[in-house]
Structure formats: structure tokens, C-alpha cells
């Protein structure tokens, strides 16, 4: 009943060993494009909400290590990457408006302090075109672009290394 099956299945099943360091965003599964098409509409009449486990970024508990999770909990240096991967569209929308929960959550993950939040939001919005260069951009590319944008800002340069 849930979509995005291909990207998700690979994400869950990916046993690709996590490479050391924070820069290896891409190793946590191939991810999907921004604004990727969805497959079909679910059957209506007999749609029972069994809510299968094939949901987005769903992990079994006590399944041990799997790519970027341990027993379902995301390993800390993958959190930002996984968040961006799973929230691309919402982040894009929030950034274009300059407000939103996904954007706040991203700021929190990066560790942006309260006094820098307004600048963070403003800078992201002003640099929308660089961060979300096209609709073909991947989670990793978004993260790298964001890093570069932060590095160029006097106030936010410290955060470009914490991502």
C-alpha cells in the first residue's frame, strides 16, 4: 500500500558497510530524486490499513546493523544525511518559503544555535537555487551544496563542518 518501494527496499536491505567519516552520505542507499513520481493510487474499496512494514525508512527492531541503522535507530553520523534524503521535498518547500518544521529540524540536526537560526533560514532561502540546483538533485548533492553555502557565510561557517 505504500510507495517509493524501490528506493526504500534498497535502503533497508543495503548492507553496504558504512565508510568512515561524515562525508559518505551516498553509502546509505541510493535514495531518490527530488520530486520523483509516485506509483499508482491505492485500491480504495478494500484498502485495509494493515499498514505494511514497507514504508519509508522503516526498520525492524532488534534486526542488528543494517547500513546506517542499528536496531532501527539511525547512527548519529548518518542522521543528517538520512533526514535530508527522506525530506527533500519538504525541505525544498520550507526553504523556498523561509519557514517550516522540516527546516527547523534540519537546523536542529546541524546544531544551529538559536541566535543563528534567522540567518540560517534567510541564507538557505537566498541560496535556494544553489542548494536545490534542479529537480534531479540527490540527497547527497543537497547536503554538499548546503555545506558550501554555509561555508561562505561569516556567521554560519562553523556549521559547514558539523554537517
Amino acid at each position: 500500500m505504500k510507495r517509493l518501494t524501490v528506493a526504500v527496499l534498497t535502503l533497508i536491505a543495503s548492507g553496504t558497510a558504512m565508510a568512515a567519516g561524515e562525508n559518505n552520505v551516498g553509502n546509505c542507499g541510493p535514495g531518490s530524486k527530488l520530486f520523483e513520481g509516485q506509483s499508482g493510487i491505492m485500491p480504495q474499496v478494500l484498502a485495509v490499513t494493515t499498514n505494511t512494514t514497507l514504508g519509508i525508512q522503516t526498520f525492524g527492531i532488534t534486526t542488528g546493523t543494517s547500513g546506517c541503522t542499528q536496531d532501527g535507530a539511525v547512527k548519529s553520523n548518518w542522521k543528517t544525511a538520512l533526514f535530508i534524503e527522506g525530506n527533500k521535498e519538504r525541505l525544498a518547500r520550507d526553504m523556498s518559503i523561509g519557514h517550516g518544521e522540516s527546516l527547523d529540524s534540519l537546523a536542529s540536526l546541524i546544531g544551529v544555535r538559536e541566535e543563528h537560526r534567522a540567518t540560517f533560514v534567510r541564507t538557505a532561502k537566498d541560496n535556494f537555487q544553489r542548494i536545490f540546483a534542479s529537480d534531479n538533485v540527490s540527497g547527497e548533492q543537497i547536503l554538499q551544496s548546503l555545506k558550501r553555502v554555509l561555508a561562505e557565510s561569516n556567521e554560519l561557517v562553523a556549521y559547514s563542518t558539523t554537517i
Partner: protein
Amino acid sequence: MQRCLRWLMVLWCVPAFAAGDDYLVELVAAAHANGLAERQEWRTLVHYKPRLAHPGLESQADDQAFFNAPDGKTNPYAELDATLASFFSAPDEADKDRHPQCRFIARYHWLKQELGFDSRRLIEQPCKRFNDWRTALNPQRITLVFPAAYLNNPASLYGHTLLRVDARTQDERTRLLAYSISYAAATSDTNGILFAVKGLFGGYAGLFSLSPYYAKVTEYNDLENRDIWEYELNFTEAEIDRLLMHVWELGPVRFDYYFFDENCAYHLLSLFDAARPSLRLTDRFPLWAIPADTVRVVAEEPTLLRATTYRPARSTVLRYRQRQMPADHIRLATAIALEDSEDNQRRLAALPEPQRARVLEVAFEYLDYERLRGRMPLGNRTGARLHELLLARSRLDVPNAEAPPTPAVRPDQGHNSARVSAALGRQNGRTFEELRLRPVYHDLLDPQAGYNGGAEIEFFDTVLRHRQGGDGLRLERLDVIDIVSMSARDDLLKPLSWRLNLGAARKRVASELNPLVTHAKGSVGFSAEDRWGSLWYALLESELDVHRHLERGYALGAGPGAGVLFDVTPRWRIQLEGRALRYGLGDVHSGSELMLNQRVTLDRHNALRLEFSQRREFDQSTREGVLSWSVYF
């Protein structure tokens, strides 16, 4: 008797234990002396429930790995003894976390607390994996999350529930980062009948799983267009620990998934019972568990509910935004969503910035809504267009629009799902009395607060009638399944409306012949809301009747139907409906019907209905009026 035998068993087994197991013998004896196997905490942790058909208990877990004793599924005493024994197992150097103390960590900690384990005589295992996991969750609070129904899928009226583990470092802006725990059927089947049947009858294994909350919000708010209600609960730190330990125990365990009773909502309640055994929430759902009802018992439990939050679905936001905009702006939004023509650009540029921002936002929301529904109006250019719309918006320095307001009535505050009614009426001059029972769930005339408008879903609605001078109570009507989905069309969203009914009802086929005719009915059409909020609908209806009194045993017909639902006052609803069907196959005939129904809400649990109908079929005219009193419980 059983207790005596247990004592004998223990004494019998003493020589079989090695010398170092003296402590085990002591613990088992202490457990028996304290009646621990009969305690609610033990029953809850091992999910024992009374068996329906015979005396005794049975655990709802369907996985031998959940039990330490071979007969653990039906024997709480043996299970407790075997669990204690398992704690003494030698740790496997390769995987210490597979040790029973860690696999059954909730049981371990409860027994440790009750029996006061001596750590010199029973070595406590470190359980690193559990501790790491718990640290990653960093729990402070538990929130019950209820994705409510959404338009055009009445099956979603049934709802779903999941938990969110709110972290210490979290605030109300970063709820998305919390983890959520959900119980669901483990399957990759997504389709139709097989899915429904297997889900109904335990054909799937249900498993607990963990997800970042943002993934669930995307799934429910965006993909399924369901409003989400969050209920923050007041569990203490110790209770939250017990809950998480129990989730850890349940992680790899298979419970057969049953759509009606042992479903997502039921198993989440079992987690609450583990946290606070005095709640006994699962005991209140012996036969079936409707998610909305489970939310209700939690919300109504004194001191358990702390606060609630509302998250509107994408479609809810879209409908709200439309109402804030003039019609020509909505048309412009649709136009620019689909095409970047010079004309559209000019019209957009002519607007002042704040309104331009709103139009761009609605254009984006509309196009993205279509994308998420699986329709790509611009083919592979859809993504690019969405990107362009956001880019244009990013250049406007306009603050965000306000969110849709929180509805005055929450889903758990709506009427209860079971309904019983007593009625008095007259049909063609003869008086009758009726008793009606509808176990589940909501129809178009029930008080709407807390429910979606235009949506109806009922199972096994039963009407028993006693006619004046007649022979006892007989079945007048039974609706096995009745589903209605009247989603109003607006400028942007143009859903279909439809109805489905399977059941049986009495039809007058001759002047004294009123047999119970089995039927299947289906209709499809459109509905729309007028500016006063009334719902108008027009449908193409079809009906298949089967009964031996019909010529050739059946009749298949089709024809137009239409109606209107409107609220004279918030408590008083009127429905006017008519249809005319021509049965061209089987028993060839025509039938028509006109109905005027009214409902007056007395309070949350009581309502009155007055229903008039005029039917003409098989050259028989039937006139009926009924006054009924309904109680929701």
C-alpha cells in the same frame, strides 16, 4: 491443585540442577510463594488472555521464540519458571545480547524487582545493544499518534495508531526527528482482495518496527492525505522504560495480524498495559479494536492525556488555502502549475507580492498533490515545474501563510462507534417496532463532529422489526458492508463519489409478499458543496437483487440517483434523496424511491431520527415513516 503439582515438579527437578543452580531453586520457590505467575504484570508481559472457547489462558504471541517453556503459550507458571532458569544461561561469547536476560529484558527487570536478585549469585548481563538503542531514542515522553480518516477512502475511517518516543532534546519544532514505533503487517502485498482476506484472517505476520517520525508524517500527511492527531501522554520515566524494554522484547516476535482485533491499535495498547499494568486497556477490546476507539479509551483515561496537536494533511491545507483566495487566483494557480506561458507569467507579475506568493504556493501544492497521488500532469517535466515554482517563491520576501485551524472536535471526541436504536414506525397503515444494532462505525446521518463529512462506513448494520399483528421479530435489513464516499469537488480537487453496499433487505414484490432479498449495490458520481456547506450529489446507481421469488431468481438494474445533505442547525441534519432504477435483466421491472431523513443530536451519546420513504416497485407502493432513538456506546 496446579500449585501443588508445581511444587512437586520443583522438588522433583532439584537433583537435575547442577550445584550452582541452588539460587535458581530459591528464586523459583519465591516466585511461587509470591504468586508472581498470576500477577497482572506477568500476564501483560507475556500477553496472556483468557481463551474464548475453553478455560485457561493463552498468549497472543504466535512465535515459539517468545516462550522459554515448551508449553509457555498456555502455561504462565511453567513460562515463569523457565524464564527464571534462562537467566542463568551461560553467555554466548559471540553475541552477549542474545542472552535471555537481554532478549527478555522487561521480564528480567520485573522479576529482579519483585524477587530482589542477588547479583553475586545471578550475574547480570550488560545488554549493550539494548542500552545503545535506548540511548539513541533518548526518551522523555510517549505520544500516541492517530492518522485519521481521509476523504475518498472510507476504509481509512478505520484509522491507524502508532507511538512516538519524544526525546529529551526535542522541542515542538523538532518533533519530526523523534522515533516512532508502529505495529504493522509484514508483507509486500499491496493489492485488493487477497490482501483484505489475509489481513482479516491472520494471514500475515505483524511486526513492530521503528521509523523516524518524519517518515510517518510524509506517509500519512503527504502520500495518504490524512490529518494526524498527536496525543501526548503522561507516562513516568519508569513506565517509559518498561514500555521500551517490552518493545525490545517484542521486536523479533511474530504475532499474527488480524485486521479487526489484533491489529496495530490493539498491540499499541498492549505496550501501554506493559508500561502501566493497572490500565488493562487491552481487556476492554476482547472482540474487535477500532483504532479510533482505542484512542478514545486512552484520551478518556484520567490523567493520562497531557496535550494534543493537529497536523493537517496536504489536501486539507490545499482546501483551506483555496477558501482564502478569490476564484480567479485559484484559476491562475492551476494555470501556472501546468504551464509556464508568457501570459501566465504576466498575470502573476501583475499581482502584488503577497498574493503572488500565495498563488505560487497553491500552484505548487496542487501540482505536488497530483504527483503524490500518482498522476504526473506534465509527465517527466512535473518535477522540473515544481522546482521552478519553488524557485520563483524563494525570490519573494513574503512570510508564510497561516496553517488551517485545529478542528473544534477531535476524532476521539466524536460519537462512539457502536450504535443501538429503538424505533417506532408505520408502513402502509400498519404500525411496527424496530430494534437496530450497528456495531461499527459511522453513517451520513450520525452526528458528524470528529468525523469526515460525506464519508460512511458500516459493517453488519442489523434491523429487526416486529409488525403489528405480525409473527415476532424478524430481520428487516442487514447491511454486511456499507461504504459511502462523497468527496466534494472543488476548483482544484475533483474526486469521484461512490457508494457500495452488500447485504439484504425486505422488498415488497407482491401485496403480502415481503421477502428478504439479497443485494449488491454500487454507485458512482459526483458531489459538490454549496456556499452554505450543503452537500449535493448525483450518482449513477446499479443494483443486483437475488431471490427465488424473482423471475429467473435475480434482477439487475441501473439508473440515476441524487440527493442533498444539509445542516439546518449544527444539531439538525436533513437528507433528501431519490433514485429511479430500471431493472433490465432477470426480473424485468422498474423501481423508484424517495426519502426524507432527519437527525437531531441530543448529546454526544444520543440522537433522534425521523425517516420517511416512498417506494414504488413491482407495482407495489410502500409508504413508511419511522421515529428512532439511537444510543452510541
